[in-house]
């Protein structure tokens, strides 16, 4: 094993240092295609290029990565897997279970990944105790984004409990504003639902219902309470929410038409792009009721089995570059997320980024870090989508809260 480890390391170092080898190349499937994101991935390409490794780009956007996953299946079936693939949560585990992923253990051991990556993330980056993926970032999904000017105008201070949160929305609604900006797409409703479950039942309940899929928890009164809170949120969104893209909902907050939005930290980019700064023109705080916990999703590069030795070397070099503190900072500054490594100084990040990093480290230490169901980090895609069906049906008024909880039990049962 140590022999192998040394060999791997030498190869990796060689790969980073050599400038000659023209044939060395990584093929990367990802869905980071918007301006800023793509540019950020570009820095990874530049790092590899400096080491003489070519970058064969293979972007497939759409459906929050689901189109890319379809393409991946076609590629693997054809016996032509890419070197590295951007992946979320349970997909990594599924591919690892198929035996399709490479083993990164020696590199991980050398660079001490286990010490700097939170255990909740390692749950996805490793399979059967072996590293199969390199985590890039942590998005936390239980944020509220708020327009500071509008808060001041309405005399609202940052709410610290669910009741205060509702009261604040009531004030905004009474004043003729949209209290909650929301886009009616299943994943956005599920994003709010994560926080409602966490708020209504706390971390243990979240674990039991969303991760362990305990039917008793799924059908419990606490779950009915979570659905009731969703109904409360529903009463504060505008009439036109259905089908709206999340960024248009964010624009409502930016323009001062709406007070709050519950959304993951990628929303920050929209504010920044509109010339606003965190902590001044806009604010971020955890969804009231979920303080002390973080629900997250994490983009990772899953490394596929490649036969060729020089390809393996390039792959390790890429994994190493992904985990380097420099890339983790560069990329996450652009993306709005926080680094997957917890040992990175936060001084380059803005107020929301710093807050996010501190809270992430805190939650990781106290056991309050949970995978987001809405973003495929709490259960498998089939269960996740079955939950979507129920959540979105309830939010659109097809079920009352009690029926929804009962339907959730059935839907999860069929999907398993």
């Amino acid at each position, binding site marked *: 094993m140590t022999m192998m480890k040394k060999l791997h390391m030498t190869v990796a170092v060689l790969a980073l240092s050599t400038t000659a080898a023209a044939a060395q190349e990584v093929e990367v499937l990802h869905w980071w295609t918007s301006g800023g994101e793509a540019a950020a991935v570009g820095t990874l390409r530049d790092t590899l290029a400096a080491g003489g490794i070519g970058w064969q780009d293979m972007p497939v956007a759409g459906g929050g990565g689901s189109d890319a996953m379809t393409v991946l*299946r076609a590629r693997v079936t054809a016996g032509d897997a890419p070197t590295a693939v951007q992946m979320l949560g349970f997909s990594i585990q599924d591919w690892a279970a*198929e035996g399709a992923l490479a083993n990164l253990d020696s590199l991980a051991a050398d660079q001490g990944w286990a010490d700097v990556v939170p255990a909740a993330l390692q749950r996805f980056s490793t399979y059967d105790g072996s590293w199969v993926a390199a985590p890039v970032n942590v998005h936390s999904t239980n944020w509220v984004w708020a327009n500071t000017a509008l808060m001041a105008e309405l005399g609202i201070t940052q709410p610290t409990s669910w009741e205060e949160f509702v009261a604040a929305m009531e004030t905004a609604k009474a004043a003729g504003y949209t209290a909650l900006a929301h886009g*009616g797409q299943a994943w956005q409703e599920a994003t709010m639902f994560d926080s409602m479950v966490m708020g209504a039942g706390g971390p243990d309940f979240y674990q039991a219902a969303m991760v362990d899929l305990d039917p008793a928890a799924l059908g419990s009164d606490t779950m009915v309470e979570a659905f009731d809170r969703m109904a409360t949120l529903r009463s504060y969104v*505008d009439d036109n929410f*259905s*089908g709206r893209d999340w960024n248009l909902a964010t624009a409502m907050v930016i323009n001062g038409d709406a007070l709050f939005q519950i959304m993951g930290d990628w929303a920050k980019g929209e504010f920044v792009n509109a010339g606003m700064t965190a902590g001044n023109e806009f604010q971020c705080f955890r969804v009231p009721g979920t303080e002390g916990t973080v629900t997250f999703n994490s983009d990772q590069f899953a490394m596929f089995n490649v036969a060729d030795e020089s390809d393996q070397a390039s792959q390790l070099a890429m994994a190493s570059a992904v985990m380097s503190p420099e890339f983790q900072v560069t990329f996450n500054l652009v993306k709005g997320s926080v680094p997957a490594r917890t040992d990175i100084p936060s001084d380059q990040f803005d107020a929301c980024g710093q807050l996010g990093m501190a809270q992430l480290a805190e939650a990781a230490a106290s056991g309050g870090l949970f995978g987001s169901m809405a973003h495929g980090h709490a259960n498998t895609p*089939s269960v996740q989508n079955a939950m979507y069906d129920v959540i979105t049906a309830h939010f*659109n*008024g097809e079920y009352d809260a009690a029926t929804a909880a009962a339907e959730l039990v059935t839907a999860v049962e069929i999907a398993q």
Partner: protein
Amino acid sequence: MATTTDTGVDFRTRLQTWLPKLVLSPSLAIMLVFVYGFIAFTVYLSFTDSRMLPSYEWVGWQNYDRLFRIREWNIALTNLAVFATLYIAICTVIGLMLAILLDQKIRGEGMLRPIFLYPMALSFIVTGTAWKWMLDPAIGLENTMHLWGWESFAFGWIKDREMAIYTIVIAAVWQSSGFVMAMFLAGLRGIDNEILKAAQMDGASNFQLYRRIILPQLRPAFLSAFVILSHLAIKSYDLVIALTGGGPGNATALPATFMYSYTFTRNQMGIGAASAVIMLMTIAAIMVPYLYAELREKK
């Protein structure tokens, strides 16, 4: 065909008789593999526990059993029935109407025809966002009407789970009715004017001309339109994804979106395959009688 005793010529003749079959055989072979082979594979998958990738573990009817217990599948089937009926009917009516109107010695026909026809050239990846905006009450048609002073105008179907499927119909009709128009126009232009003139001499009114003589002659065009429209209806996928993503809730899911979602997004390939088999059977139920009638008639 002349027969001869000369072996060289005989070979040539034999080649000539075999050549047509030889020319056709690659296409046939390709179809057997890439269409019927794949269909057989899908049928097989629908009886296995395939999830992310194909698996060969036999589970009997379990996938079909689950399929019909899933509420969204029943919604998708109902939606398809509503969508296909309205879509085919409206496209045919509008297509026929436009064709008849265009056939009245219209000045500027050369301009109008491509305008009616062009939506067929565009995929919904291209026009999806524009449609979404138009139908969105806050920014689209409703808002524009309000700005123009028509305050009571309301058009929020896309946000309403009872009505959203009808907005899908509108966009779909927009895309294909021009194509149907072209088919009917071609049919109209193919009708012998002498017959019409003769009927007119006998004192037939315009309406009678159309009812008694022209429409019956358009029968082949009706059939072609029906086949093309029903296959477009069953395959409709881009349209729903671009306009509503299946929402509000799951109100606009169609079997094609259901199938894609279960096969690829939800990693339940077995159930996805089962839904595909049901879809194929639906298509066959429509197509086989048509093909049978159509092809027998030619004899």
